[in-house]
């Protein structure tokens, strides 16, 4: 549950306050706008040569550490590395508080105010909603934080690209590995919104396809559930070999902690954290996290290029290492800027569809994900990696948390383009 405050807290937009039509909101906004700087006014010539990026993310809720400020830092890193290409890039940020209504109104306002590209947009319900706005306004959106594979399936759009990961990729890597290791009967604990549903659906399909069974699932209210013991006890009662956690962030962390407390794993039931980032492992701690398997498409200690990226971005980071969403924001924005440079700022600003088309036409390559490409349905493809969380004794350095178990090559990591039902593919 969001705090009582979030309903009335005026969201920050580029240093200004949006006036929500509540009296308290108006009072608070009125009190602060006088102190806050407004968007810089640009001359006509400057404006024509400036590309504007808005990072719409979760700055205050459950996904803050997995996205949030570090996503913004990584976007700025991409912009800094792209400097001196003959045009200006401006980055602003806002907190959507994981609320689709707020996300949509911020996106609409941003696009109307001349923001050309929105990046990150965690929380699938918000991601899907903003995808619609971008299409309606013919602007561009880089989906990085959202997980649902529907973004490049039935709800795909010519104005968006989906980077870093999706529910299908997670199901394919973690799900298949668990079934292969003998975990052939599953029970799901699912966050009750678009993301949880998509993750449960994709993982169930994969478990069944690999010869496993799904015994049932329980849907937990999101946000607002902190005690999962009741759901864990219900899950164990069906005697599954695997409990699939189709949730993320704090929900997953609480599930893992409470599963240890209630002896779930000691009874031989395995936990499959369908979405777990290195940032979550950091807060679970290696004592309770050791042995968990997870899928990410980026890890700082993967190869020389990933370590080089980390060393470049590290001075900007506040005691946190990037996960695949953070790296995805860097990679996606870098690629978008290459496309902008290629077609010229006025053309890129004029049509989000054209920008995305240009991005699809150009091969991708960066330090985080290596070479890759964007498919017609908007899916950026690259390999995915199955990791196991190290035990404390194996961890030699700060954030040395993961060891690689297996790699799924780019061509197999994501849902085949013909199976997603994306209308762009048929045409």
């Amino acid at each position, binding site marked *: 549950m969001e705090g009582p405050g979030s309903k009335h807290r005026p969201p920050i937009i580029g240093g200004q306050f949006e006036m929500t039509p509540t009296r308290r909101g108006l009072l608070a906004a009125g009190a602060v706008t006088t102190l806050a700087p407004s968007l810089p006014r640009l001359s006509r010539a400057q404006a024509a040569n400036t590309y504007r990026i808005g990072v719409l993310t979760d700055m205050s809720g459950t996904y803050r550490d997995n996205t949030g400020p570090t996503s913004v830092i990584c976007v700025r890193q991409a912009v800094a590395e792209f400097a001196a290409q003959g045009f200006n890039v401006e980055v602003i940020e806002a907190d959507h508080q994981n609320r689709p209504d707020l996300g949509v109104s911020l996106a609409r306002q941003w696009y109307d105010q001349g923001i050309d590209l929105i990046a990150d947009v965690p929380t699938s319900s918000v991601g899907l909603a903003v995808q619609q706005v971008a299409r309606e306004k013919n602007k561009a959106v880089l989906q990085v934080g959202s997980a649902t594979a529907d973004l490049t399936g039935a709800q795909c759009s010519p104005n968006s690209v989906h980077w870093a990961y999706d529910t299908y990729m997670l199901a394919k890597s973690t799900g298949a590995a668990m079934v292969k290791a003998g975990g052939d009967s599953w029970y799901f604990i699912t966050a009750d919104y678009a993301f949880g549903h998509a993750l449960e659906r994709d993982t169930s399909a994969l478990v069944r396809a690999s010869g496993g069974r799904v015994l049932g699932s329980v849907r937990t209210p999101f*946000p607002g559930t902190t005690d999962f013991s009741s759901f864990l*006890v219900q899950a164990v009662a069906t005697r599954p070999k695997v409990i699939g956690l189709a949730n993320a962030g704090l929900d997953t962390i609480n599930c893992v902690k409470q599963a240890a407390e209630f002896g779930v794993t000691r009874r031989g039931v395995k936990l499959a954290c369908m979405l777990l980032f290195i940032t979550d492992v950091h807060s679970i701690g290696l004592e309770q996290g050791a042995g968990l398997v997870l899928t990410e498409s980026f890890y700082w200690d993967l190869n020389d290029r990933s370590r080089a990226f980390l060393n470049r971005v590290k001075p900007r980071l506040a005691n946190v290492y990037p996960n695949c969403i953070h790296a995805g924001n860097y990679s996606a924005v870098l690629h978008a800027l290459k496309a902008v440079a290629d077609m010229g700022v006025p053309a890129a600003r004029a049509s989000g569809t054209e920008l995305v088309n240009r991005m699809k036409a150009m091969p991708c390559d960066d330090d985080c994900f290596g070479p890759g490409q964007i498919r017609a349905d908007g899916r950026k493809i690259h390999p995915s990696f199955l990791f196991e969380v190290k035990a404390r004794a194996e961890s030699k350095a700060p954030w040395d948390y993961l060891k690689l178990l297996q790699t799924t090559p780019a061509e197999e990591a994501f849902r085949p383009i013909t199976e997603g039902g994306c209308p762009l593919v048929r045409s």
Partner: protein
Amino acid sequence: MDDIFGIPAPLLFGQLLLGLINGAFYAMLSLGLAVIFGLLNIVNMAHGAQFMMGAFAAWMLLAWFGIGYWWALLLAPIIIAITGIILERLLISRLYKLDHLYGLLLTFGLALIIEGVFRNEFGSSGLPYRIPDALSGAWDLGFMFMPVYRGWVVIAALVLCLATWLIIEKTRLGAYLRAATENAALVQAFGVNVPRMVTLTYGFGVALAAVGGVLAAPIYSVNPQMGSNLIIVVFATVVIGGMGSILGAILTGFTLGVVEGLTKVFWPEASATVIFVIMAIVLLARPAGLFGRA
């Protein structure tokens, strides 16, 4: 195996027990709120933040000073109570003569600031805090696995609730407190230092929230949102129980925990909403709450 409404009986017992454990947190927090509202007439919206500060204090004591759980259980509430007392002296005490709304707005604003500061410092995904060795492990009750720590939480909460109720209803100090809320000037005339008593009462209410935070630290991840997740439910508890009624807060807290636990079995999706449905019904039928005096 016998079924009750299609649910195996052992599973249902397990859920009742888990509901009672969550109820213990609701009871402890709503008790603090009820004490503060009953005696100070302040709707303490910062209660959730103070619960969270209690958990963070326990974490800091361990991580920075190596002070373990048992000492934290004593020290964290004292530290947080002192911050509460400073707050009361500096800010809240200026609002007693004004409408409830001002106290609500002030403490609400404070809660947002406190949570924001902790979020900036510690991030949102939380910090690990281990269950103390003496309370780790679990009993196998046959129908479910019962962690020792959760049993401890229920016992600790019951003892605290009962002790608070006894102090306020049965002791001379409690009588002074109750008298001061009825007629502060008269009690002051008898030589009782009413402002100091009120300050200490606020400190006590805050300490209750902090104890709850320390008890919660090993179960939930210690994170800045942990209070705001609970506080709305706790407010509903206080409203259902009757604003300011100590006994009402305790009984309603445990009852709602159980009701919520059962909802998690029969209709999991509604488990976050059921308490507010009950609140709406109670407010329609008995606007003063179940135990309130209209």
